[in-house]
């Protein structure tokens, strides 16, 4: 197992290196010069050259690249090229908890709604309940997250005034306050995934209920709910976990978009501002963190597999 983890971590490092490299060169391939933009008012190109030199951006690109890699390996993500030149790690440390709060909350909401919904529609296949769940699921699937976000704001913030429309409050300011700020964006991004997971649970459960070992369990005289939860559900969960892993990663991407609607200064906000400003170190740092989360969630999925399915053992 530890050997397996080591191999996986090595793989993860390679993936993240590839991402870092790609982002590095893509950023530089995009036209636009941050320093010229900064000195636009004064119109003094000499000042721009001066700044460029200070950031090492006048070196040939490959030299910049190796310097950057060396920095990252030492755990240094550089500083923003703007204003007071805040270290990138500080910017991320500030914005990351917001994004991850949102992602985790959205995931939790999606899964806690989707699993019972999927189970119910499998158990009462073709009933009104099943059709209802299916209808809501397709509705949820067909709504873009930013649009759902706006709908929620109009209803619950502007209309009913129950929830704050925008902004973020850390968990330290109280669970209720934290939740009241995040619940709408979390529902906005979580809904399509709740729909997908519910459908997956339903079809996977129906598949499992047809198997012979479920017939065997019935022939033993076991209770219906016991068969469903103890015999069928763990088996039905195996294919669903893959989807949940992908969902977690995509939810993070969704969070990055919807943060902007709710004016939450998370990684998404940081990333978009960074791109608009051509703030290379900030964009590179933020993307590195996001890809790190992707890789990690993949690893967690594989470990979960082994926990549920005894046939899977990692060497």
């Amino acid at each position, binding site marked *: 197992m530890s050997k397996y983890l080591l191999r996986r971590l090595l793989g993860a490092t390679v993936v993240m290196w590839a991402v870092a490299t790609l982002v590095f060169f893509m950023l530089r391939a995009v036209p636009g010069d941050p320093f010229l933009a900064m000195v636009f008012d004064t119109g003094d190109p000499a000042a721009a050259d001066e700044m460029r030199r200070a950031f090492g951006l006048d070196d040939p690109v490959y030299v910049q690249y190796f310097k950057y890699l060396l920095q990252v390996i030492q755990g240094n993500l550089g500083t923003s090229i703007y204003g007071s030149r805040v270290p990138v790690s500080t910017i991320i440390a500030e914005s990351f908890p917001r994004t991850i709060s949102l992602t985790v909350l959205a995931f939790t909401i999606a899964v806690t709604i989707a699993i019972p919904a999927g189970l119910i529609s499998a158990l009462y296949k073709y009933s009104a309940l099943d059709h209802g769940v299916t209808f809501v699921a397709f509705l949820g699937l067909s709504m873009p997250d930013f649009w759902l976000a706006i709908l929620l704001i109009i209803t619950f913030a502007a209309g009913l005034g129950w929830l704050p429309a925008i902004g973020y409050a850390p968990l330290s300011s109280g669970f209720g306050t934290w939740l009241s700020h995040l619940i709408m964006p979390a529902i906005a991004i979580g809904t399509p995934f709740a729909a997908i997971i519910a459908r997956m649970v339903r079809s996977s459960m129906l598949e499992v209920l047809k198997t012979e070992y479920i017939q*065997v369990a*019935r*022939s*033993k*005289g076991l*209770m219906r709910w016991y068969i469903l939860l103890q015999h069928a559900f*763990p088996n039905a969960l195996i294919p669903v976990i893959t989807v949940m892993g992908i969902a977690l990663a995509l939810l993070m991407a969704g969070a990055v978009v919807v943060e902007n609607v709710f004016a939450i200064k998370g990684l998404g906000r940081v990333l978009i501002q960074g791109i608009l400003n051509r703030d290379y170190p900030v964009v590179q740092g933020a993307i590195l963190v996001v890809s790190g989360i992707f890789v990690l969630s993949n690893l967690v999925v594989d470990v979960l597999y082994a926990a549920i399915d*005894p*046939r899977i053992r990692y060497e």
Partner: protein
Amino acid sequence: MSLLSVHDLELGFETPAGHVSAVNGISYTVEPGEIVAIVGESGSGKTVAAQAVLGLIPQPPGEITGGRVEFDGEDLLGFSEQQMRTIRGRRISMVFQEPMTSLNPVLSIGRQMTEAMRLHLGLTREAAEQRAVELLGLVGIADPGRRLRQYPHHLSGGMRQRVMIAIAIACEPVLIIADEPTTALDVTIQAQILALMQDLTRRLGVALVIITHNLGVVARYADRVNVMYAGRIVEQGRADSVYRRPGHPYTIGLLNSVPRLDRPRDVPIEPIPGSPPDPARLPPGCAFAPRCLHAVERCRSEVPPSISFEGGHTARCWQTAVTRPETAP
């Protein structure tokens, strides 16, 4: 009174292609401690007839349209799901055809062995595990303590079927229904498993209904035989009688299609020509008539009645009715 008696059981399935009559009025009995075989080709309705006894037919698409299933004097078809649960696994247990898929892949062998004992017998976990160890020993599995902690994928097909047998006898049922328990196994393992089932059921005094498509198996292990064709029992009687003096052309065909020890080696094995009828479109007369070499006009229009010979041996065949006139009352 018979332990189990099935009367004119009829059941079918609603499918997109129409109504499938899987079982068309079968009757048989099982006495306490007896081994009864149900023999027939694939698709003759053996499995669904057995599942109906335990109320395991999925409804819909299945529907039991007639008949009675009396077990220990009670009509099981009238039982509620809750009442059936007190029968299943406790008084009647079942061994399935496919040992590779009968065990739940994510639950340990121990868990799958003990759950029914804890439920039906009210044993504590320790007591149930203790008994599971004994049961594994009884079905010939070495190192039972270790096996209990393993998962199905650690076990071979033969061992899994032994585990299934151990589960089947765990709550000391009075009847075990084994649905082709050895079809999926290697030939050498088949004989071992059958011998084990025979030995255990005899020793524990449990009645056994053994479903098979191999009439050769029957001769060795069963007391009585029911031959099924297209959802009907076409011949029944004591195993030796059916084996020595088969009354129905289908039974004769089945006997000629399996290797036999009591015949010269050079007698060729002949499969029955043709294939069983589509249960969605059964012919009006004897369902075997289209494949039967002796069929006459009457066979194609009227379902033959049950003709009795010596010793309670019966067959449903117009021709046999002529060549072997009734001897029994």
